[in-house]
């Protein structure tokens, strides 16, 4: 009887199986940082027009791309095609917009503007150099056919993306 008990204890000790999970941890540090340099403001030069152009009393939004790895990213800036917030509108709004390089941190980046690709409301820049690049976007909204915008607050969004090649 004593021998059986000892054998049972030995079996009980060996029943738990040892197993470990070894994690693999890695951090990816972003090498493309997008920062809003200047918030845009709509001017209202005509009752039917909202514009960020300084000539129209607006402020052009500026976004800065900081890239620490050359020739690895594309900058995509999309001008608005709708208001994200506005009074109720009963007519269509016609949007026009453009994006251009406004400032660079390297002389070689001055070629970005000539090499940009535009499709729809999106402008794409190939960030071939490391450093900072400032992009400014203009946006104009015209309501109906010379129809006055209803009074209220209007907000539109410029979408800036950094796409890895």
């Amino acid at each position: 009887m004593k021998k059986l008990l000892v054998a049972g204890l030995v079996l009980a000790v060996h029943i738990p199986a040892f197993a470990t999970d070894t994690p693999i941890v890695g951090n990816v540090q972003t090498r493309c940082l997008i920062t809003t340099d200047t918030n845009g403001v709509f001017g209202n030069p005509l009752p039917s027009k909202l514009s960020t152009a300084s000539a129209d009393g607006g402020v052009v939004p500026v976004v800065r791309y900081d890239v620490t790895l050359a020739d690895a990213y594309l900058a995509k800036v999309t001008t608005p095609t709708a208001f994200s917030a506005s009074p109720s509108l009963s007519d269509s709004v016609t949007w026009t917009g453009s994006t251009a390089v406004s400032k660079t941190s390297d002389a070689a980046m001055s070629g970005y503007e000539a090499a940009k690709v535009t499709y729809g409301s999106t402008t794409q820049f190939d960030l071939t150099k490391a450093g900072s690049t400032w992009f400014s976007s203009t946006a104009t909204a015209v309501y109906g056919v010379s129809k006055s915008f209803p009074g209220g607050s209007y907000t539109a969004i410029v979408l800036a993306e950094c796409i890895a090649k």
Partner: protein
Amino acid sequence: MRKLVAVALLALYATSAHSEYLYGISGNMAGAGHTWGMNGIGPGNTRGLRVNGVFYQYTPVKNTEDDMVVHVRNKRVGGGYIFSSTDDWSGLPGGIPITKGFIIDNLPIELWGDGSIDVEGTGSVIDANVVYSYKYNNDCLTPMSDPSCPGYAEAVLGMMGKIDVTTYDPMDDKNITDVLKEKADLEADSEQDEEDEDSDRLERILSGVDESVLTANIISQNRLMYSLTRNSNMNPYYIKKLAGGVYKETVVLDGGNLPDNKKGARAGLAQQILHTKMVSMQYDPKE
């Protein structure tokens, strides 16, 4: 005496020394042209001003096919350049502003020579903006803040020149000369008179010397106090005068006669009688 006062003032000012760094940013040094001096950055009369950053921006004006190189730089005092950044615009389009920032390793302003934006090739630069960031000690905003500040000695000596420092020469002291003269006369006096008057004259000699020493101490104390309170202009108090200059006696004795106080005399006499009676009581036979 002048040296002593100067040393005392130096010691007084030395006690207020302290160090603290302040930071600042210059204005656009390239605003008036494409060359500039470095004297204008930072507040004046600062000690240990050090440049810790350079930021510049400009817009190149050129045709894409033209070669153009732009140098933004500062000469180093003694030769060479202490800061230089070159942008090669050859084959690149102009019109887009370039902006750059550099962290500088706190290089002393004494090393920084004139700055410039130099263009090589075909093209030009517009809307240039060059800004320096710096740090400095605030303990030399006035030269006398610290003995190690530039111009400290000149400032202290300049302040000394404004103070009317009168030196004390013992031989100009009338008390001293009188005593010396009297001492010479003493030698000619007879020994008999010398014995009689010796102690009296010695007292006067010592009195005169003490008075001179006291005067010297008072002068030095006055100078020290004057230097301590020099910032307080005491003149407004000194020039105050009494109205009329003299306070005349205004109490007049009516009739000019002071009669005896009979009531007081009676009270005094009664007290005396009582006192005498009390004293005499001790001699009364005991019963």
